[in-house]
């Protein structure tokens, strides 16, 4: 199993960052339905080539869900039901499908070891503060979700927000009982984390050496070129009226 995993090419963190930026640029430039689908298929192919085949099915499902939401929005437009609802649904469908492309690369970037990520950003001549900010963001979201789960678990034993009906009928108090401990905990965690980082010299702006070596190979370059070529080709075909 381990050998099979290692046989795949593991991109440099900078590759994911570049792919993410290319993804953002491509969804801003490409507007057609078919063009968007081509970009999405190209994105899935990159995940397949980098050993992330297990992600393909979930991404494909998300794509279909967003397609369904968009389709429902358009149908509602036809049937003259509330315009705001139908336009909102169709917008969610379109934006959701588009955002999946850079988001899937960003998720892969988030999966990289923090040390590699900071080293990669430093190699790209970004100030250290950028690396720290990225690492804190990656650290922050799982922390918040962990704290949220802990709060909700505790609340079940106190009879707060048990079930959808109870939550909806007591929405203001439920939200209050979630937010207050969440803010208290987040503040405490942020303070302690910051103290821990400070004494370990993370904020030190001098030279640092990363534990993990990073290497941007020709394969990394090829992946970025592949994505750029797909985006460029789709854009040109779209402008030429083919798509």
């Amino acid at each position: 199993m381990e050998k099979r995993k290692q046989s795949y090419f593991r991109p440099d963190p900078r590759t994911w960052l570049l792919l993410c930026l290319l993804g953002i640029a491509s969804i801003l430039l490409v507007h057609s339905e078919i063009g968007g689908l081509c970009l999405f298929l190209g994105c899935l192919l990159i995940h397949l080539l980098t050993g992330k085949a297990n992600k393909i099915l979930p991404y494909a499902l998300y794509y279909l869900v967003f397609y369904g939401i968009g389709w429902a929005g358009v149908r509602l437009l036809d049937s003259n039901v509330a315009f705001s609802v139908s336009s909102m649904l169709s917008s969610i469908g379109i934006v959701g499908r588009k955002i999946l492309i850079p988001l899937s690369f960003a998720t892969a970037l988030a999966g990289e070891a923090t040390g590699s990520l900071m080293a990669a950003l430093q190699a790209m001549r970004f100030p250290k503060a950028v690396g720290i900010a990225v690492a804190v963001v990656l650290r922050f979201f799982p922390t918040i979700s962990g704290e949220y789960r802990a709060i909700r678990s505790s609340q079940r034993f106190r009879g707060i927000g048990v079930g959808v009906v109870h939550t909806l009928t007591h929405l203001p108090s439920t939200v209050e009982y979630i937010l207050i401990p969440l803010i208290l905990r987040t503040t405490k965690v942020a303070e302690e984390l910051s103290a821990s980082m400070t004494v370990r010299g993370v904020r030190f702006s001098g030279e640092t050496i990363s534990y993990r070596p990073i290497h941007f190979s020709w394969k990394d370059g090829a992946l970025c070129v592949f994505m750029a070529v797909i985006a460029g080709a789709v854009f040109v075909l779209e402008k030429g009226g083919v798509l």
Partner: protein
Amino acid sequence: MIELKNVSFSYANNCENSGLRRIDLTVKKGELIILAGKSGCGKTTLTRVLNGLCPQFYPGNLTGSYSLDGQDALKMPIHQLGTMVGSVFQDPRSQFFTTNTTDEIALGMENIPLERAVMQERVKAVCAQMNIDRLLDRRIFPLSSGEKQLIAIASICAMEPKVIVMDEPSANLDSDAMVRLGTLLYRLKAAGHTIILSEHRFHYVRDSFDRLVFMENGAISAIYDHNEALRLKREQLAGMGLRPFEAPAFQVGGAFQSKPEDTLQVSEISCMLDGRQILEEVSFSARSGKILAIAGPNGAGKSTLCRTITGLYRAMGTVQIDGEYLKRKKRTNHSFFVQQDSDYQLYAPTVLDEFWIGKKETPARKETALAKLKEMGLDAFQNRHPASLSGGQKQRLLLAIAAASSRSLLVFDEPTSGLDGYNMRLTVQLFKQLAKEGKCLLLITHDMDLIAEAADCVLYLEQGKVRYHRNVLR
């Protein structure tokens, strides 16, 4: 190595009242010093002064002088001080910066900075010494609190600082990990490192500490050398609010005999989380009026088991409470789970309001709440905001809420983690009172003092399986 002369410190925001008053302390190179005292006596603030967090991170007024290895430490920037004074903090969940264990261990070394080959060598050495190779290259978030604490300790030890300051490093560790930590500290001391240990549990450094510094109200009340400290009688230590030096003396005897009328009957619970088998066909029972301690190494599946029993996690197997087979959601209604951190378990604007949160306030409920608050010694705080209580008081408030909940099964996750001797003994009394009232108590704990003083039987888990379920002999 360390010389503190007439050091006083008060926090600028005045939120934390545990400042320092006229601290005079000299620590030689290679000494292991224990800072002891009741919670809130100023131990943590003293460690913050030593590592430079006070006043460089926590602003406040610091007077006096602090010399470190012949240099004026008060003039050193904090990152420079950090390379000389390594710090392990109390809460393992909020002190890691990266998402991967190996990166976390290497983090401090990257910033010194050390050569990559040296870092790799040190990571290997420290992991071998602490027996934590199994934790390398794993995601930090799914680890247990004890495992996270081991990573935090390894991260500091790998930096090989001249001085190591640890704030209750054993609070979440199992017995084996504690012994290994004791050995590691002994080796570090022998290698010339100066160690300052703020602790409530002393037995794992019983043979290696040099002096015990006893603090009260932000000042040093007494300093005992090794022999003087060991001569302190149990009653004297109890009077000082400290725990004993000796490892608690208790034995487990014959196997616990399950009976059909037992309040809790757990049968063949198996659970997988994050693609790992955490529990494997765990079966046991627990009785009302008895206290069952669930013990075992860090990551053995203790918390997962209790979360499954109380309906927080889905798992294979069956759970019977009060003779009734219950589905997951029903189990939550029949039990009360007090988690380790009280901060996210208190929601109301006042202590008294906590008792009818999610319910209606009735005269009967108010009467029960007031009675429970009185039992726990919290009646004077009924109109205070729960967040303003101390850690021990919050813990007792949760005990009172659990007692008033009329649930027959009460589960507590590490209830005495970080508690001094005084608060630990108080908590034990309250547990015994709850058991006397007919509640069935499960305590997830590594605290041998707690097991020795409170538990009637012990369920020992190892790698997700029951190793034994036996009665405690006294």
